[in-house]
């Protein structure tokens, strides 16, 4: 099976102290460290596991600049067969639809049976997967937390819905799935793996290579524009449970029951 996994490089929320810049239109980007968007990493792991079971290839693609090669290499160190960078000045400032448009152009250059995205980017809005499917006119399922390959070009997938309930669907290939974290346990990528792919050539495609109309992407074409960033005002502090250990435990269980955490 030919699988395409779309990934993105994001500031790692666990390793940065995210603060707004003085103009309050972006976060402070000095001293940030980046990593693969976490749900995307699960998508790549899932692709690798599928290929491990039934054979095929995993291609990892990202839209961005030279600095984004880092995440492609990390996913290649994980086991992806190749990484592709879609990079063009005209791409910058694209909104979700713009990114989906760029990806669609790349998808149509090849033959992919299955396209995976992370459920959302940590700095994004969970829209590229769905839009890409729509632009390609492929079936789409979101929040996928298990994939089973059926005969006859079909998949059996389960989706996580509110309250942790699972919904099982059958979906035709080719399709686009947005992958929920927890679908698998992504393998570790060590320094050695990264070093081994450090000098592998990463093909780069620009707008003209993909036949993309420059007016359909980039800042000018974006219909969603970020206006402001703000940190919400601090709400009421945490509720401290009082009493003996047993009383606290009892109150906690009651609270969890009331909020639906326990049944």
């Amino acid at each position, binding site marked *: 099976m030919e699988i395409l996994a779309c990934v993105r490089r994001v500031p790692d929320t*666990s*390793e*940065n102290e995210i603060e707004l810049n003085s103009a309050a239109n972006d976060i402070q980007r000095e001293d940030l460290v980046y990593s693969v968007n976490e749900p995307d990493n699960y998508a790549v792991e899932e692709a690798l596991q599928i290929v491990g079971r039934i054979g095929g290839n995993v291609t990892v693609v990202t839209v961005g600049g030279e600095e984004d090669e880092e995440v492609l290499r990390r996913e290649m160190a994980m086991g992806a067969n190749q990484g592709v960078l879609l990079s063009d000045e005209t791409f910058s400032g694209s909104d979700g639809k713009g990114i989906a448009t760029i990806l669609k152009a790349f998808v149509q250059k090849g033959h992919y049976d299955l396209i995976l995205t992370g459920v959302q980017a940590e700095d994004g809005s969970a829209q590229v997967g769905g839009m890409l499917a729509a632009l390609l006119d492929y079936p789409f399922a979101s929040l996928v937390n298990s994939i089973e390959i059926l005969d006859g070009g079909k998949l059996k997938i389960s989706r996580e819905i509110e309250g942790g309930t699972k919904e099982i669907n059958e979906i035709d290939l080719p399709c686009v799935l947005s992958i929920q974290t927890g679908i698998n346990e*992504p*393998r*570790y990528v*060590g*320094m*050695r793996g990264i*070093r081994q792919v450090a000098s592998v050539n990463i093909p780069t495609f620009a707008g003209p290579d993909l036949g993309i109309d420059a007016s359909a992407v980039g800042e000018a074409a974006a219909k969603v524009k970020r206006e402001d960033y703000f940190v919400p005002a601090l709400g009421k502090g945490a509720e401290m449970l009082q009493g003996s250990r047993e009383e606290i435990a009892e109150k906690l269980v009651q609270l969890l029951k009331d909020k639906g955490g326990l049944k």
Partner: protein
Amino acid sequence: MLLEVIQAAARTAYWLDPGQALFIITHILGLTCFSFIVTKRLIPLLRGEHDYRLDRPLSRLRRLLKYWLGQWKHPRYLTAGTIHLFIFAGFILLAIRAFALLILGASRNFAIPGLYGRASALYGLTTDYAATIVLIAVIVAAVRRAVFKPARYAVPAKYGKGHTGDAIFLLALIGILMVADSLFEATKSAGLSQPGQGVEYASVLSLPWMLKSALGAIPLSSQQNLHFSASFAHAVTFYFLLCYRPFGIQFHVETSLFNIYFAKLNRGTVKPVKWGVADEHIDQVKSFGVKNFEDFTWKHMLDFYSCADCGRCSDNCPANTVGRPLSPRFLTIKARDYSFQHYPVLGKANNTNNKKPLIGGIYSADEIWSCTTCGACEEECPLLVEYIDKIVDLRRGMIDEGNVPQTLQKPLKSLESRGNPYGKMEKKRADWANASEFQQACNVKILDGNNRAETLYFADSITSYDDRIQKIGRATARILDYAGEDFGILGAAEKDSGHEVRRFGEELLFMALRDHNVAAIKESGVRRIVTADPHAYNALKNDYKNVPPMEHISQFIARQVRAGNIRLKQVEDRNNVYTYHDPCYLGRHNQIYDDPRNVLDAIPGLKRVEMKRSRDRSFCCGGGGLMLFYEPKEEQRMGVKRVQMAVEAGANVIVTACPYCMVNLEDAIKVAGLEGKMGAIDLAELVEQHIVRASPVRQCAEVVRTTQQECAMASAAQRDGIRA
């Protein structure tokens, strides 16, 4: 024994010919079988990885004398150790005779060099007693095994069936050997055509003596038959044992000599990924770590053969004690079983059909991550079997395959991008020293090129970033300051020492951290390094190369107390009973046991007790570094167990000298419900509380203005103060 058999056979007319032929056939058959089996057993070793164990022959010889001939570790378990000492001594004494016999098979006139006449008779006397003592020892050992059943010999169901039967069978064979030997000796005069030749001593109360007395009445012909049967039974049992031992726990009789000679010499270190490959060529290594059995080094395979199944390692292993899925004993036994199965004595070696990788095959991932590398197993093993290097090698294999628990992946990634496992910003690494109140009292220099210092305080990650542990950092800085040390820290230029990174198998990340730190330390121009973190201490001392000399803060304090530069006042709370918990990487791995204790004892009025498990038998608190991120499957926390040991010792304050011990023990006190009844404090914190502020040097300088005599009196008073 056999030597005499052949001599006797040559002189005894009526069974000379068939006897001699029978014995020669037995010798040839026995030796051929043994050589064949040992050759087969050597095959996996030849397929194993390289291991350089031929260096420093004198150090190795010294260890051989101490641990092999001297049986140094055995008395740590007094009963079993004593029994073993007797059996071992008996074997050594009897072995000389056995070797002589083998040579005599070829040369009838051979005699043990130096053993003629009186000496020979004396040797005979000694071996008579040796055989008797060995017999008594094996009976006691068998009774222990069969009746008293010490818990450490038990085999948990998941590891298969018990080994008691095999152990008793082997002991019985030794017993038969001794009885046959004694019977042979007892009937010797009957077997000789000219009885009573040479000098003879009666080995009163020995088994041969008793047998001789008992058999004196039976006819000569029966004695001769007995003599022949005894010698033949002895020969057969001897060769049967020789050939049977390589199939089980008694192979150590043959391998121990080599295992101890080739044992690891450098404490606190970890073996390289591949012996003989320089760091700069590490990228050329095709596969990292141990994934298949053949990835073990030949020495590690020899370890598997050498294990005597005594269970001391697992008896002391904290992971095993708290129910983690790890038992060092079975780490070895399982590998040995694998080796015997895949490299059988009969049949083709390494049947590839059912060959599985070790992880998922004989070991589970959790088993291998469960080890805290505390070193209790290695400290205990009488045969110097190595465990930590194997665990690290297995982890290297798992890291290489990406098989790493999710909880460890984040900290490893953060170590790569931020140089600490918490993902904190590099620029905040020196914040602990910049807290305004502290800064006023003690200004810590940051050696960033603008500042220079003699001594570097290498804080490491947990001290730099953990709120609780920062206090240990500040106490350490204050002590250095009081002692008048010209010191500084690296601040943002310091990265994690990588101590656990290496021990968790991520060698290349460790190398990157090490290289960064070594460059930063060189750049700083310091001449000494001090740390309060035993893990950092061990990394910089034993893992890094070419860095200035290391000192742990406990050594520094002890030195300064001895020199009179640090003076300690009366203990603040006289009701407290303190106990010192030895951190693994200060104690076992670096042998620093006395300095911290001496420092505690230098606090006047401090009451200190020892826990049952202390010094080299210290019980790990739960592990440091990345181990804090690992979620083990266990029945109980190691720390809780340790805190209970402190309660048993009658202490109400545990003093330790390691930030990770502090984290684990403080948590454990809460988990054990002992808050308010038990406390934990770092040695540096305790010393800082009790330090007499003005340094003696300065004090002395003030006094010197009056008279020199008064100054001398003042120093004497200070020394008395320390002693009190």
